[in-house]
C-alpha cells in the first residue's frame, strides 16, 4: 500500500533542495504528450482541408467546443483568457486519464491543484482590477465596511476551496483504487478495476475538470463585471 507521492530526485540549486516528485515528473510527461499532440496538429494544420475529416475533426471539435464554452460563460469581452483555461482543461483531463495507466495523477497532489487555483486567483484579481479598477476593491466593503473581513476571507477561500475540491476528488479515487489493489488478492485485479477506473478517473475526472474550469470562469467573470 503506497499512497505517498514518491520523491524521484533531489536537486540542489544555490543551497536550496528541490524535490522532483512523482507529481512533477508526471506533469512533465503530460506536458510532453500534449505538446507533441499540439505539434502534430500544427503540422497537420497545413494540410487541413475545407471539409474536415478524421483527426482534423477531433482537433477542431475540441478547440471549437472549448471556445464556445468559454465565450458562453465569460462573454465575448473577457474571452481572451480562454487559452489558459484550454490548457487547464486539457491538463486536468489528461492527468485524470493518466491514472488509468496506474500512474499517479498530478492532480491528486495538492501542489498541482493549488498552483492551478492560485493562477485562477491571480487572474481573478488581475481581471477585476483591469476591468473594474477601484470598484473591485470597493466591492470588498459591501454592503457595509464591517463586512470587510468576511469578504476578504470569502475571497481567500476561493482558491483554497477550488484546489481542495479537485484534490479531494482525485485523491479519493486514488485512495480507493490503491486500497483495492492492496487489499484484494491478485486474481480479482484484472477486469474489475476497469469499472473503478472508469468511474473514478473518467467520470469523476471529467466532471471535476468541467467544474474546476467553470467555477474558475465564474469567479473571474464575477470579479471582472
Amino acid at each position, binding site marked *: 500500500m503506497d*499512497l505517498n507521492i514518491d520523491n524521484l*530526485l533531489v536537486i540542489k540549486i544555490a543551497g536550496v533542495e528541490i*524535490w522532483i516528485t512523482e507529481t512533477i515528473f508526471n506533469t512533465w510527461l503530460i*506536458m510532453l504528450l500534449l*505538446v507533441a499532440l499540439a505539434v502534430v496538429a500544427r503540422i497537420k*494544420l497545413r494540410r487541413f482541408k475545407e471539409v474536415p475529416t478524421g483527426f482534423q475533426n477531433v482537433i477542431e471539435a475540441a478547440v471549437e467546443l472549448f471556445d464556445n464554452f468559454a465565450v458562453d460563460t465569460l462573454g465575448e469581452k473577457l474571452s481572451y483568457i480562454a487559452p489558459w483555461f484550454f490548457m487547464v482543461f486539457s491538463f486536468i483531463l489528461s492527468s485524470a486519464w493518466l491514472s488509468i495507466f496506474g500512474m499517479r495523477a498530478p492532480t491528486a497532489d495538492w501542489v*498541482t491543484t493549488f498552483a492551478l487555483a492560485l493562477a485562477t486567483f491571480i487572474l481573478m484579481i488581475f481581471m477585476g482590477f483591469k476591468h473594474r479598477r477601484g470598484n473591485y476593491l470597493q466591492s470588498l466593503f459591501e454592503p457595509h465596511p464591517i463586512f470587510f473581513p468576511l469578504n476578504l476571507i470569502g475571497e481567500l477561500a476561493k482558491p483554497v476551496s477550488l484546489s481542495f475540491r479537485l484534490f479531494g476528488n482525485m485523491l479519493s479515487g486514488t485512495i480507493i483504487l490503491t486500497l483495492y489493489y492492496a487489499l484484494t488478492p491478485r486474481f480479482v485485479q484484472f477486469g474489475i478495476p476497469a469499472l473503478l477506473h472508469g468511474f473514478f478517473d473518467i467520470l469523476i475526472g471529467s466532471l471535476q475538470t468541467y467544474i474546476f474550469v467553470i467555477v474558475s470562469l465564474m469567479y473571474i467573470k464575477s470579479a471582472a463585471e
Partner: protein
Amino acid sequence: MYTMIVFSAQALPEGRVFGLDTQTLIGIGIQLLNGIILAVALGFILYKPVKEFMQRRTERIRSKINEADAAMAKANELIAEYERKIKEINKERLAILEAANLEVAEERKRILDEARKEADEIRKRALEKIAEDKKHLEKETRLYIIEVASLMAQKYIAQSMDAETQERLFEEALAQLEAAQWQN
C-alpha cells in the same frame, strides 16, 4: 519505470500525501511554471492557429455564400429584365398587329367604297342610258304612232269626212297627244 531512478538516487526523503512546508511552496512554483509553459505552448501551437484557421474558413464560406447570393440576385435581375423585354416585345407586336389590322380595315373600306362608288356610277350611267333610250324610243314610238295615225286618219278622212270634221278631229287628236306627253 521509476525504480531505476529511485535506485540511482540515494538517501531520498520519504514521500508523503500532503504536507505544508517549503517543498510544497517550491512544488507550487514549479507547477505554476509548468502550467504557464504548457499554456503558452498549447496556446501558440494549437489554440490560436486552429481558431484562426476556423475563423478564416468561416469567413471564406460566408464570402462564398454572399457571392452565390449576389450571383443569384444578378441572375434574378437578368430574368426580370428579359421578362420585361419579352413583355415589351409582345406589346409591340400587338401594337403592330393592331395597326396592321386597322390599316387593312381602312384599305378594305376604301376599296369597298371605291368599288361601291364605281358600281353606283356604272349603275347611274346605265340608268341614264336606259332613260335616254326609253325617251328616244318613246319619241320614236310617238312619231311612228303619229305617222300611223295620221296615215290612218288621212285614209279615213279621204273616204268619209268633210273638211270641217277633219279639222276638228285633227285638233282633238293633237290635244290628246299633248296631254299624253304631259302625263309622261
